[in-house]
Structure formats: C-alpha cells, structure tokens
C-alpha cells in the first residue's frame, strides 16, 4: 500500500532548526496536513509551542489523506478538526537527535582522519569527494499508515541511518491555548535577538517571574523585569533612544528619535504623536479602560526561558497579549539555504531560504499575590 505520507528533504538542518525551537518537551503531537506537518509541544497546559513544517521545506511531499481512516477522537472544535488528519504523539527528543545525525560528517571530518595521509581502506569514505557528499544526502520522513511508526531515513556518505519512532495516540484533549485574536491589546514587533538578549539578561539573576509592562504614552513604554531571584532584581527597559549623551537623564523626555537604517527593521516615526521604543518596529498598546493605561502581566520565568532557543534562532518576534493576559510570541525564522530557492522573502537582498514561523503561547500568572510579590519595577 502506498504510504499515507512521505516527505523528502535535502536539508534536514532546516527541520532540525524549527523543531529544536519547541524542543523543551520530550514529546510532541504531530499532525499531518496537506500543507505540512504541525508539531505541537506543551507543558502543563500553560505553555504551548507550535512549529509548522511547511511542505515547501520538502523537495517532495506526498500526503494521501483519502487513505486515512482515522477519525479524530478528541472531537475538538477548533479550526483544524474539520478534516481528520493523522494526529499522533512521538518522542521529540529522539526525533531531534536523529536529525542531528545528518551532517555529522561535516562536524567530525574536516580536520579528522580523512585528511591525513593514512591509506584509507574504506572505499565508502574515499570514493566521495566533498561536493559529491552534498549530493548524496537526503532525509526521508514517512508515515506508512495509521498506527505505524514515524520513520526517518537519513543517507549520507555511505551510511544509512533509519529511525523508527513509535507513535502514540493522543492523550485526552489536545486543544491549543486560546489566544483571543479579536481581543489583542498589545502587539510589539521587534528583532528577536533583542528579546533574547533581554531574557538572557534577566535570567542571570535567576528570577522566578517575568513581568511585562507596556504603556503607550509614558515611560517606561516597554519593560521586562525578572523578579523573585535570590540576590538581585533586574529590568530591561526598551526606551526611546536619545542622542547618546553620556549622563543624559533618562527621565527628561526627549522628543527626538534616532532614525535607524541598520537592517530596515527600524524606521523613522512621527516623533511627537506617538512614543515607541526605538527597537520596536510595531508598538501598539491599547489596554481596555478598566486596566488603566498600562498593561502589566506576569508569567512564570521558567516557561519563558523555554522559548529561548526560538528567540536565538528567529529574526523577528511578534509579542502579542490578549485581554485575558495570554501571551503569544510568534517567531519568524528565516532559514538560510545553500541553494537559493528563488522564493521572494521579505526585503532581504541576499538569497535566503524559506521563512517559517514558530509560535509560543503562555498562560499568565493570575495569582495576584504571586504576581505582586515584587512590584517595584512598575511602581510609578
């Protein structure tokens, strides 16, 4: 019987990069759709990470949905359940380790034995020159039928590795953390590296809580702080960049903005009408009137930390919060590609690979006492 799904990639590294973003959990839920593979990892129903492997990441992608007889047992009512696509759980850590085997020669051979003058008696390694090696590698994902293992086959340099991951049925209700798209009260877009840097900075004081504070009309416009650490507290504030005067008093509101042209991620803004942190590309804060003019929300720092890999890999991040305090971090990842795909992507001038998205959602800390254990940062 023809396999239900077969996908061939000549760049397993792309798959690895995306999946490693949600590698905080040992297992992931996989859903096979005609458009790609949807991987979801979660922790305690308060953190969810979603990575979508678009079918464009595969050189060949064949999904024969009609042969699928599986009905989604969970009966969930979100938008994905209209058609019952294969839906199962696999070991994400094992999948990641397997994908890492791909390209192992690149890491271990450059100054290894292959270059030495020892007579190589191994025809497998001597027959391939470096360019040939690149052509010889491929990565095939296959799901033969409902209940079959998910198999990953990797071939390169005379070695063929096959990994069969046992697939498990979904445990109970696998619904997503709901983000109220019609009740978004905050949207901040900036380079992911800056968020990563800030979280890393806060992390050094080993905080337990991440506090987010955003306000459209007064400082601090956008600040992240770590609280609950044993010896120190730290805050990273994204403010309006002034003219770098040493000793400039940051409380004095300067109305001048630096116009940035670093990578096109910052642009000149109407300076007097709307104040926005310099690093942000989009800065929309519209709290409901009951909330006052400042949005404050707390999250478990340990959960935010789990998005660290995504932060370091992504180019941009969109930070969104809804009225309930659910935080969404949507990461845009531009995969580099040895072979230009010709896909027009963004405004980049150099050839870049496909653009993919990884989503994280966090449930806020609602326990008022816990959240307000230490409110110095936002006190005004």
């Amino acid at each position, binding site marked *: 019987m023809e396999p239900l799904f077969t996908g061939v990639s000549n760049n397993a590294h792309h798959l690895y990069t995306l999946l490693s973003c949600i590698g905080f959990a040992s297992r992931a839920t996989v859903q096979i759709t005609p458009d790609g593979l949807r991987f979801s990892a979660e922790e305690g129903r308060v953190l969810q990470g979603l990575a979508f492997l678009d079918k464009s990441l595969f050189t060949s992608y064949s999904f024969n949905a009609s042969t699928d007889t599986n009905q989604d047992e969970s009966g969930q009512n979100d938008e994905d359940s209209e058609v019952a696509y294969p839906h199962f759980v696999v070991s994400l850590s094992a999948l990641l380790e397997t994908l890492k085997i791909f390209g192992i020669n690149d890491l271990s051979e450059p100054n290894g034995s292959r270059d030495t003058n020892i007579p190589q008696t191994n025809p497998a390694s001597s027959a391939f020159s470096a360019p040939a090696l690149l052509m010889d590698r491929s990565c095939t994902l296959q799901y033969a039928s409902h209940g079959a293992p998910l198999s990953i086959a990797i071939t390169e340099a005379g070695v063929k590795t096959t990994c069969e991951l046992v697939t498990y049925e979904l445990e109970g209700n696998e619904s997503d953390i709901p983000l109220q798209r019609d009740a978004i009260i905050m949207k901040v877009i900036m*380079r992911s*590296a*800056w968020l990563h*840097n*800030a979280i890393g*900075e806060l992390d*050094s*004081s*080993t905080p337990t809580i991440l506090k987010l504070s955003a306000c459209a009309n007064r400082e601090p416009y956008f600040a992240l702080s770590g609280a609950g650490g044993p*010896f*120190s*507290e*730290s*805050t*990273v*504030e*994204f*403010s*309006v*960049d*002034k003219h*770098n005067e*040493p*000793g400039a*008093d*940051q409380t004095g509101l300067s109305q001048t903005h*630096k116009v*940035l042209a*670093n990578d096109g991620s*910052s642009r000149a803004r109407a300076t007097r009408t709307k104040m926005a*942190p*310099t*690093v942000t590309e989009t800065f929309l804060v519209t709290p409901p009137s009951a909330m006052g003019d400042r949005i404050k929300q707390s999250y478990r720092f340990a959960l935010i930390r789990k998005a660290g890999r995504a932060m370091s890999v992504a180019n941009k991040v969109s930070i969104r919060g809804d009225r309930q305090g659910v935080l969404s971090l949507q990461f845009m990842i531009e995969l580099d590609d040895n072979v230009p795909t010709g896909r027009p992507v963004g405004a980049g001038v150099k050839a870049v690979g496909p653009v993919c998205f990884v989503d994280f959602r966090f449930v806020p800390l609602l326990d008022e006492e816990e959240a307000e254990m230490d409110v*110095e940062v936002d006190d005004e």
Partner: protein
Amino acid sequence: MSSLTLSLAPPALVRLHDVLICLSKFSDTVAIEAEHDLLRLSALNSTKTAFASFVCEKEVFFETYAFNVRKDIRSSSGSTAGDRFYCQILLKTLLSVFRGRVDRNKDTAVERCDMELQEDPQETECRLTIKMICGLGVIKSYKLTYEPASIQHAVFDKGRATNQWTADPRFLKQIIEHFSLSAEQLDIYSDSGKAVFTSFTTKIMDGKEVLKYPVHTSVAADKRDFEEIQIEDNMHIAINLKDFKAVVAHAETANATVTARYTQPCKPLQLAYDFEGVNAEFTIMTRGEVEGETAPASSRVGMPQLSQRHTPAPISLNRMNTPRGATPNTQMLPPPPRSRSIRPLNGSSTQEHLAPTAVSDRPSASSVSMDYDSLFVPADDDRQWDEMDEQEEPQDILGWDASGRQDNSEPTLQEAEPDFPKIADTRRRPPKDEMGVPPTQRMSQVWEPSRVGRVQLTLSRFEGLVSSIENVSSQCFRSFRSVRSVY
C-alpha cells in the same frame, strides 16, 4: 549618610569583569570600600592565607566618580565627611551582571554603565543599583543586595621585602602550564642563575597507593627571563599554586608585569601590578622552612594566616573622629617578628575574636584544599595569628575604643555606641541603647574576653542590638537623584 555614584565606559566594564573573575577565585564575596578618590575591591580567602585587592583610581578608571559622606543633620555628634564606606556583595551576583559584556548585537551594546549605592535609613534593604545604558534606548538595570562588611586588609610592608622579582605574566603562565592540575603548592627558589618553580602536593600517602602520589614538577627558568630578579639563593618559599594561577591569569588579561616581594618563608609574599588606573595587590602567606632544610617536600610547615587589619564596618564612621593618621587602614603594617612557638590546635588564642571565622575555617573544614592542613599543620596553625595580632590589636580595637570624644570616658564597648546614631536612626532609640554590631560579625568578635564582664546584656539591650543590626544593614547611601544633580 553617604552616597556613591560612578559610571564606567565599556572598556572599564570589561576590566571590572576580569577583576571580579579574579576575586571569585579567592572568595565568594567581594568587599567594596569607597573613599573619596578611590574604590577598593578586595577578597580574603576563607583560610585567611590570601588577600586580593584591587584599588581603582577615581581619575583614571572611572568616567565619573563621586563619593560623599554627608553629615546627618539629625545626628548629635558632628562627624566630618570624607571617610569611607564599606559593604560586601556576593561575587556570583555581581558576575551575573557583568558577565560577558560582549554583545553580539552591536546596536544594543553597552554604551555606559552607571552605578549608585545609597544609604537610606528608610529602606530596609541595602541596594546597589547598576544601570547599563545600551544602544537603541535599551536600558538594563539591576538592584543588588549587599551587606555591611567587616573589612579586612592583609598587612604587608613592601619596604621590608628582601627578595623581589618582576616577570611577564605570559612567561609565568608558561611555567604554570607544566604543573599538574591537582598540584596544590608552588615552591620557589633560586639556584645559580636559575629560578626554580616546583609544584608539589602535601598529602599523606598510603604506602600502597604509590600511583596516587602526586607528581613533582619543577621548572628551572633562566633568571634572564625575568625583568628583574633579586632573590636569595636556595631559600625556598611556598605558596598555594591556585592563588598564583589566579594572579597570573588576571595579570595576563590586564597585560601587566607582575612583581613579587617577600622576605622569608612563613612571612607574606606580595604579588603586585598596575594597569589602567587599577592597582592590584595579592598578599599571600608563604610556607617553608625558615632556615636549614630546603627541600620542598619537607616544607610541611603549617600555612599561617595572614596578619590583617580587621575593621568592623560601622566603626568606619568612628574613625572620622579620630585624628588624621590614626586610621592608617590603607597602609600595610610591617609584619612583626614572630617566634615559632607551637600550640595545640584548639588552644584558644586570646586574640581569636579578631579572627571572626577562625574557628569555622579551621583545617578541619572539609574543603579539599584544606586536607593537608588538617594533617600537617595542627600544632602551629594559629601562631602567626597570635603574634601579628598582638601588634595589631591596638589598631583593631581602635574602632571600638575611645578616640578622644568627650561624651565617653570609659574605653569599653559601650563607648562605641554613641556613634551609631550617625548611621542608625536616632529617633527611635536613645544612643545609649545601641550597639554597633554589623550582622556579619560574630558576637565573639565584639566582646573581648576581658571586656565581656562589663557589658551586661539585658533583654532590652538585646532587642536594641537586634534593631541596630537591622539598621546597620539598611544604612547605605541616600537618594541618587539629588546626588546626580550635583554633577
């Protein structure tokens, strides 16, 4: 009331990080002392055999530096400004702030670092605020908790050093690289044109476990490889290799030439160098045979502790009242002559109160580096302490003692009390009920055996003590904004 504000340029930030890394190899905490023209960062190791000190000059190291001791108007006694402020901070905490300031995002790299430390009686916690002003309007700020400290300085008299050498740290590092990682001690001597560095380990070995015997490594370098070397031939001195490594590693990053000065075994050795407005000094106790036997293997004499100046924190303000010159804390005293009397391990020295951690840091401590001490040194571990302290005592006690103030006549512990209102809140308690005991001090330090009898500790007084402890810990510097507007 005191306040300290300073700012650092990115290069100094890197230097500061290097310094903190170095200090962390000696202790878990760094003592910070601010004076009007310098900032000293120092660390004394737990066995009190090594003291590391970095003095950063106001004019060179900092972009801006302002330290003020301001008179508290509510205080009845008139203290003059211009002394110093002490505190200590966990190095781990500071390192997390100053760790790798190499920012991959050049746009948001640190442009300036501002630090402020303020003494505010209204605050219950001591806070050091650090702000990293980065590009693109990113501001990273930290509030660190610190504690009042009893500052201790090692004593070393450069003028008396009879042996001296100066060398490039890269050369010293080349020597170190030959030593095994587990080697604990470093013996140094000179022999006809060669300077010999030998690593060894003093450990009692079970005769059957020959293979676990430590390797002796000796490196004989040409004296011409030193910039300067004047040392007595065949006199062995030994120091902890770990300390030496820490110094050399830092001197290398600072690109500064290291000078070693010492007199003889069992007297301190000092390693010193200067770089970019920082004066680094490491005072390290040596071991070895004073005369006669020279083999490093036999240098199993106990590692004496450094003699030191011990300054309980609150007393610093006392010193304001003493005549100038009566607070020579920044100078090293000459080491006093010393006999080699041997005492039993637990013979309590009368000066033990001056060594606050002496008991807990006894060689019985389980730390690996101490093992040999517990095996080899029990008898005379304390003897260095005793003699040094006998001379030191007047100095050390000065803080607790009368210094010519009119409101007290008896040189007892109580005399120190009236000073506390300067730093503690005078409104809440009458001065007489206060005792200045920094929380880091043990009671045994405060009461000398001979004086204990004179201080009757009633319950109410004890409460006073507790609250003054709280107060001392909250005494830091005052509001930053007003200070900032000054400059």
